[in-house]
């Protein structure tokens, strides 16, 4: 062995070597992603006021709906509305994770990541974990504003409300993976937004979010009943209104898990593919 080989070996010894473990990578990248998210002050501020127009417009414009057939008796429209807004907030939060991902995939850092001893799936997991933080911030903002300014009350008590937030986060998580898969496909933010816009409208309105399903025309009722968002809204609403919620809650968690189990591996495979 020559002196050079020895020095090469020494160099090898000094190197961090195996790189960070996958959980450590996910931790580091999640912290990084959350920090990047929080450091965008303007975005944060917008996020904090965002629920106001929705609460105001939907709360005022649709309050007459409290008289349509099938509407739960004795429930103020705001208590009916807030669960729907919680689930649509989760939907938007998932979309935001995916948009962030297209930014990252279009940027230069990802090509450096490809030369690191890194499991690239970590980038996606970190993004979706950061999405949970984002979702939590948005949901808490929504609930607090609705409570302070619009008289929203959780009839199921505080614990049910916490569980309702958790169910909404499950929806955000599952949809986040679905949208991230689209992000890996489309690569471009604009294309993703267009595709999401196409899906968003029917998802939100062909559901029980703003109207009781019973009040819909039959064909739309069929669509609404098949809409996965309906399950989420049913679960969150039952919790908030203090009604039996267990089956709907379980169904929502199961659905979110199923969507994640199907979309996450495909998304990871796509993002890992070179060339």
């Amino acid at each position: 062995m020559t002196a050079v080989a020895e020095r090469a070996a020494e160099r090898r010894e000094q190197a961090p070597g195996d790189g960070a473990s996958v959980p450590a990578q996910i931790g580091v990248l999640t912290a990084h992603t959350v920090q990047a998210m929080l450091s965008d002050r303007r975005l944060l501020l917008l996020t904090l006021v965002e629920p106001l127009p929705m609460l105001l417009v939907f709360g005022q414009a649709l309050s007459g709906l409290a008289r349509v057939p099938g509407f739960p008796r004795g429930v103020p429209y705001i208590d009916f509305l807030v669960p729907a807004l919680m689930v649509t907030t989760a939907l938007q939060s998932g979309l935001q994770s995916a948009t962030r991902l297209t930014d990252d995939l279009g940027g230069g850092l990802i090509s450096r990541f490809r030369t690191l001893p890194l499991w690239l799936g970590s980038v996606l997991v970190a993004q979706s974990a950061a999405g949970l933080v984002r979702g939590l911030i948005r949901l808490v903002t929504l609930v607090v504003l609705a409570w302070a300014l619009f008289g929203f009350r959780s009839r199921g008590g505080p614990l049910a409300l916490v569980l309702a937030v958790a169910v909404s986060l499950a929806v955000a998580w599952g949809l986040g993976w679905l949208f991230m898969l689209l992000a890996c496909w489309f690569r471009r933010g604009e294309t993703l937004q267009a595709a999401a816009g196409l899906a968003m409208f029917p998802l939100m309105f062909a559901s029980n979010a703003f109207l009781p399903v019973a009040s819909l025309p039959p064909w739309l009722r069929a669509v609404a009943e098949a809409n996965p968002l309906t399950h989420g809204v049913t679960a969150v609403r039952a919790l908030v209104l203090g009604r039996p919620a267990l089956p709907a809650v379980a169904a929502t968690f199961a659905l979110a898990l199923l969507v994640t189990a199907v979309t996450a591996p495909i998304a990871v495979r796509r993002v890992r593919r070179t060339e």
Partner: protein
Amino acid sequence: MTVASAAARTPASAIETAALGKRFGEVTALDGVDLTVPHGTVLGLLGHNGAGKSTLAGILTTLARPTSGTARVAGFDVVADAHRVRRRIGVAGQFAALDDRMTPRATLVLLARLHGLGHRAARARADGLLELFGLTEVAGRTLRACSGGTRRRLDLAAGLTGRPEVVVLDEPTAGLDPVSRLTLWEVVRGLARDGAAVLLTTQDLAEADRLADVVAVLRRGRLVASGTPGELKARVGSRSVTVRPADAADTAHADRALRANGIVAALDPARGTLTVAAASSRQVTDVLRALDTAGIDPGDLTFSEPGLDEVYLALATGHGPDAALDAAPDTAPGTAPDAAPGGPVRGAA
């Protein structure tokens, strides 16, 4: 594990390719490249735009897969053992691989953390690299607000966060000011002294001459020569003769006249000169006779020992004694050329 047992594991060559090929549809970017870079060596890869330098760098850094042949880096196959290769390489590509929204310090800390360093060690590593590349002053500025040279330097620093044993740099000094360039040269020499192997592509022949232990020239995806700068110069001819016709308009005319006599010259239209590798005075006479016959006044006549420029022009454009050069590829660095210097730059008959 002790250093001794690691030494026993150290592969003979840091980079080893065999019949490496890469096709993009109809385009053959790399064609049968055999290359060996031992530890402690700097290899300068030269070649025209589109010669395949970045393609080779991409394969060695696991960004692209070869379509034929094999490549081993730090002893591991770049396809089958990509993950092990990635643990051991440092990369700075032709285009900066950075996030514009991040600061230099945050970038380096993140990368060091991903390499498995703890908080404190990562920060120390980042500070060391910022210092080394003169980035301390801009360390807290978002990259969007940094100059091109700053990005370039940060990208190079980023490539070294993991203390790599094989370093691949694609045109590392493009866009650097002279001071930064010298710094980089020193860093590269230091890496080699520490036992790392460095492959760097460059368009700057002076850089290759000064920095590289071995120079390899790619032409249209084929390796047309490799050896120490000294060997390559010796192979192209011990000296060259440059003429600058008194009348600049005669330059092209002179080129045709030489070609008609089977002599290929490297034309520099900007300076109006023609350079011909000439090992013996006989060949100088040939040049002069050819010009005289065509009625061209040779004007300024200078003799020079070959620089890498001549070597490169002869090799990369294909107007050179290919046969002689192709016959002796991969001479180990430091050994004397095995054959007598090639003949004069006669046209490929």
